[in-house]
């Protein structure tokens, strides 16, 4: 059985020292081992940006695509081979700006993949511009007078889009984050895990210390029930979205794969590509 070390490769990440993404990488590797995966049964599909490089830093099948499109690629992979564990990942710009359309639709489609967003509230790789997660007033190279747009609330948005698994974590909480990723992988359907992953180079506001001061663990909220959507929404609004833990899970709703008419139980990769002459004749007769 593979251990988390088997999910390590020899590539040195090009992230800045202290970047939150290192912990996310470690958490994915641990979670993959903990749920009993072998490296070849995991596909990590990532977008573009600092965090998008993560698919190259894990010893598994990895696909580093184009900006904002990790989710459709990941859904295609899963539809082709339902036996693979598919993790999509990228940054907040990737998932909540250029790729936001895909995020909302992947949520409502509910294909059984796990989406891990490394949320640092800034554009890092392009050297410090505003992100859709930047708070109003946040000064960046592209918003020298401070951002005048409202920040997106991804967790609330996911709930309204019909998400069946919504969680949030902080990159330093390695143990909690690993457990959430495991739960996400085990969840039958689309799981969204937003991880506060501080950018130590370009974001001097949302720092490690800032998160430590402002985050509330849902495990500390007395009687919190992650199966109650209304309570989840109220709690998120009350804490301005700054909570960590499993926010909401719906285990009743079936995943997309379970609902698709005619979809093969075996991976589609094993389908016979040839066409039986009788079946073809039947198809042809319909045009006569």
């Amino acid at each position, binding site marked *: 059985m593979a251990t988390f070390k088997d999910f390590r490769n020899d590539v040195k990440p090009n992230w800045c020292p202290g970047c939150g993404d290192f912990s996310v990488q470690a958490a994915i590797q641990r979670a993959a081992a903990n749920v009993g995966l072998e490296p070849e049964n995991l596909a990590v599909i990532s977008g573009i940006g600092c965090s998008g490089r993560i698919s190259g830093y894990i010893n598994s099948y990895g696909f580093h695509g184009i900006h904002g499109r990790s989710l459709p*690629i990941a859904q295609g*992979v899963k539809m082709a081979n339902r036996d693979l564990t598919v993790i999509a990942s990228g940054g907040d710009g990737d998932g909540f700006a250029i790729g936001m359309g895909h995020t909302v639709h992947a949520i409502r489609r509910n294909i059984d993949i796990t989406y891990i967003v490394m949320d640092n509230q800034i554009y890092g790789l392009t050297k410090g511009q505003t992100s859709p997660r930047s708070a109003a007033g946040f000064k960046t190279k592209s918003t020298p007078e401070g951002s005048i747009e409202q920040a997106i609330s991804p967790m609330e948005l996911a709930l309204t889009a019909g998400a069946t698994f919504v969680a949030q974590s902080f990159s330093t909480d390695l143990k909690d984050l690993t457990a959430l990723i495991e739960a996400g992988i085990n969840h039958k359907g689309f799981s969204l895990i937003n991880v506060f992953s501080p950018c130590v180079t370009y974001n001097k506001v949302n720092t490690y210390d800032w998160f430590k001061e402002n985050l509330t663990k849902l495990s500390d909220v007395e009687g919190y029930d992650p199966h109650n959507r209304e309570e989840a929404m109220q709690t998120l609004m009350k804490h301005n979205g700054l909570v960590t833990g499993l926010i909401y899970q719906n285990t009743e709703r079936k995943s997309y794969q379970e609902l698709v008419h005619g979809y*093969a139980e075996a991976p589609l990769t094993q389908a016979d590509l040839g066409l039986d002459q009788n079946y073809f004749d039947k198809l042809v007769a319909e045009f006569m």
Partner: protein
Amino acid sequence: MIKQLSWKVGGQQGEGIESTGEIFAIALNRLGYYLYGYRHFSSRIKGGHTNNKIRVSTTEVRTISDDLDILVAFDQETIDVNYKELHSKGIILADAKFNPKKPEDTEASLYAVPFTEIATELGTSLMKNMVAIGATAAVLDLDIQVFEEVVREIFGRKGDQVVAKNMDAIKAGFDNLKANLGAGVQTMQLEKADGKKRMFMIGNDAIALGAIAGGCRFMAAYPITPASEIMEYLIKKLPALGGTVIQTEDEIAAATMAIGANYAGVRTITASAGPGLSLKMEAIGLSGMTETPLVIVDTQRGGPSTGLPTKQEQSDLMAMIYGTHGEIPKIVLAPSTVEEAFYDTAEAFNLAEEYQVPVIVLSDLQLSLGKQTVEPLDVSKVEIRRGKLLTGDLPEIEAKGYFKRYEVTEDGVSPRVIPGMKNGIHHVTGVEHAETGKPSESAENRKAQMDKRMRKVENIRFNMPVYKNAKHEDADILFVGFNSTRGVIEEAMGRLEKDGLKVNHAHIRLIHPFPTDEVLPLVQSAKKVVVVENNATGQLANILKMNVGHANKIVKHVKYDGNPFLPHEVYSKAKELF
């Protein structure tokens, strides 16, 4: 007795014009006639003039006719818009309800038949289309029983009574006109057809069927005219084969989802028209750079922007050859008949996997939506070739080592594995990468990988890259075209040959990489090269000049008003030159 007939039905969109044409055409197809149908329609659901022109022949027909024998009109606009196509012995069968008026400058005859009144008497005015079919049958002296089978198939689920009523409507239309025939309606009797059963289908049906035959088991697509029929067909048929279609949130998702599924090892298609292809361009580059097979259909329509969404055009050619930033190897196929659309789409999946490149199957609105009689398709001719896709156990790789997915090879194509395979782990990225897929910016590696990728399609093997009908060693004219203009060129060619001109024809099926060796000798041996295409700038003519030279011989014959070429337009352009 006539060998050929052109029949057109017109009215307001949403009035059942399409189904009238459909019932008429299917019935005649079953008698063994060859048909070619082309719909004129607008980008709206109700209202606006629409018509369906159907050519019926005892021999093969592949394009719209110049003139018209019978016009069935449900409103005055249909007469006003279309009467000029009628020849002097042509007939207008018009609904008496709107007091049809015949324009002064036509010798065609007009018969007002109470389509609506008869239908209303029989129960519902909706059946006026059936009355019109009956009236047509009377002119053609056809036994109306030929329609019963089709009517039963279409209305059968609504019950026997509905079938019977519709047949009554056809009979009433037939009888009404027969009663008037004494008053001098000329009948147009078609010679008997061979009675053979042949398919009657649109190009999009053939593309979808070709995809299934070619092993496609998944599709990701977004609806658009004139491509949607492909996804609509596949969602009906793929589930029986374990596959499915996902209607994505946009075109970008469609292309990238298709890339994901192809990367994971399932033959996957996406299809769209110009606006969708514009959105897919970045993904096409990703497919090229990551060497992930991808089959994309582009059913061209009038551009640019939203352009003429329901009209014929062939203006995406350059965009399909060169589209996406940077340089990638790419294959562009352009089937010129419905049959070729079937075989070429199936073959596109082989080429995509063998060369590990994006393959664009180019179609156009006339080919995709024109409905025609098709010779039998032979599925046993369809091969499944997956190129260097490895199966079975892979040799062990060293610890932390990666499989060389981008190994530099002589033909440029590298061994390919799919996720899930032990010892096959590698990285895939749109960033320039080394043999293992790991990012690399070294100049030496860049050149090695770029050369390797571009080398793949240098010698591509494609059965019949050019359709040639070239009898003459020294032709007066060489016609060149792509996609649906094949039929119109063939017809013009026949007339020109009768006039004593020596005419050759080359229809380009492999647009890119351009089959220069096949085309050059034909260009060299012709006095004039007439390139017939539905765009404003003569894109194929320019491609031809670029690849084979001889610019002084090349004559552009372009049409970009939204309508397909008619045979006489191609004929007269060539006549002008001699």
